[in-house]
């Protein structure tokens, strides 16, 4: 009797499952799938049907420069974040907890601080009369203030600041999951420090590095706020281009085309991530 009652309850729940999903499903369908598809339609329908928007986007040096800026900044930010983030994650994974807690609190504070507040800080720090230039001049390293804002240097510094936590936190998890006994074994077998690092630790953390790098690269490709504020008008990135087509130029056809390019690149990179770096699939 009890058993049949229990299966009865379970059965009701099973049938209700789709009902539970309905509100979220409607929201996603009407306000995510439909508008994104409508935007993509406009890219091939406005001002007339055809692929002329894409031809214009890919055929002009102005826009190619935007693509170049975007990939260049995303690439540099990714490499710098990994090179700095990896050793930090490594030490964080093995340092005594009373210290790592402080470091983690700092990382999380910076991560949770409002994006505009952080970008504003860098706008002020990097300006001609800002602290960075003044310190460098005070140290006698430079005679003239360096142009650090309104160019891609500023964008790269500001974005690296934002992306660093996204590299450190997952990498810390990956390194923590490596069994120290493997490294002890390598050392016992006569491997030197360099060999231990290059042939044991680094290869074992490589999946984490690849996944983190890909995530930072994809996030950087579509970033809007920091490039718009630190980059100035002459060094646009792709997300800014999409916004500009729609906001200032009211050219929905070109805006839709630029959005599609961004969307396709992003989804393609995520597909790579799921195919090759998905932890659920790998192990």
């Amino acid at each position, binding site marked *: 009797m009890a058993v049949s009652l229990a299966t009865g309850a379970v059965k009701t729940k099973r049938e209700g499952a789709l009902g539970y999903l309905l509100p979220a499903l409607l929201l996603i369908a009407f306000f995510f799938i439909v508008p994104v598809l409508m935007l993509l339609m406009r890219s091939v329908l406005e001002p007339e049907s055809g692929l002329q928007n894409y031809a214009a986007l890919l055929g002009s040096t102005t826009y190619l420069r935007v693509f170049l800026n975007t990939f260049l900044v995303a690439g540099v930010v990714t490499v710098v974040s990994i090179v700095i983030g990896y*050793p930090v994650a490594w030490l964080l994974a093995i340092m005594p907890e009373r210290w790592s807690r402080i470091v983690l609190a700092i990382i999380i504070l910076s991560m949770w601080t409002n994006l505009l507040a952080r970008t504003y800080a860098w706008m002020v720090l990097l300006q001609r009369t800002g602290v960075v230039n003044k310190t460098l001049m005070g140290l006698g390293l430079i005679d003239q203030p360096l142009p650090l804002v309104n160019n891609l240097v500023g964008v790269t510094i500001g974005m690296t600041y934002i992306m660093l936590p996204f590299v450190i936190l997952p990498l810390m998890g990956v390194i923590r999951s490596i069994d120290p006994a493997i490294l002890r074994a390598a050392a016992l077998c006569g491997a030197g420090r360099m060999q231990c690092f290059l042939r044991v630790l680094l290869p074992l953390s490589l999946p984490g590095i690849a996944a983190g790098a890909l995530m930072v690269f994809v996030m950087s490709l579509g970033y809007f706020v920091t490039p718009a504020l630190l980059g100035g008008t002459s060094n646009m990135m792709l997300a800014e281009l999409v916004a500009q087509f729609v906001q200032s130029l009211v050219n929905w056809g070109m805006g839709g085309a630029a959005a599609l390019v961004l969307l396709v690149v992003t989804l393609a990179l995520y597909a790579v991530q799921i195919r090759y770096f998905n932890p659920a699939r790998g192990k």
Partner: protein
Amino acid sequence: MLLDFDKLGGLRTSLVALVVLVCLFLILPIVFIAALSFGSSQWLIFPPPSWTFKWYQDLFADPRWLYSALTSLKIAAIVTVLSVVIGFLAALGLDRGRFAGRDFLRALFLTPMILPVVVLAVALYALFLKLGLAGTTLAFIIAHLLIALPFSIISIGNALEGFDRSIEDAAILCGASPWQARLRVTVPAVSHGIFGAAIFSFLASWDEVVLAIFMASPTLQTLPVKIWSTLRQDLTPVIAAASTLLIAFTILLMIVAALFRKGRKA
């Protein structure tokens, strides 16, 4: 060896030095902004010639700042409630349902979080222009709900995974209706997931700027939009004051979250 902190040898010094530098890199801009908000220099000269509360007075003297903060708070509160309720239902459906396409559906629900937000912003803006919703509070709520919902689904979904549902079945066997069992047994058991969902949903809306720029109208602005439009004109120290208040609020949220975690462990 390389994974033993006490046996790193000379490498330890350089690694510790790097971590200290990175910590300074991460924390100094935040400290710097807080210091400048009390500095008297209009041109944000550091160290400031003298100290003042002038920028905070300016901030509170302009009703548009307060109004935009209240707008942000209202939108974020509504988004939080909707995101937790819809997210709880969706997470329950994904956890309990055994149907084809479940993994696809889960991925679909999380997509708005990973796509470039500017694409979503432009697409929604076009739709809301057609529907006559552009510049309304409802437009803000829908846009922010889309990016808050994934956080709820992940947070509550993780909590549900760790919950033994036979406890819920036991309540039903003892005579509770399915919804009674869910509200009085399951919900309290996954409360930490719900709490996480609420905090992340709130922050997702409160801090969000790209969607907000496209949803805003001259009369309806959230705080990030107000900061954004001010920043595009000049670097006034009033923004340093506003940022400092936001940072203080963030620290408060972190402390609440930490206390909550501690309370759960005890």
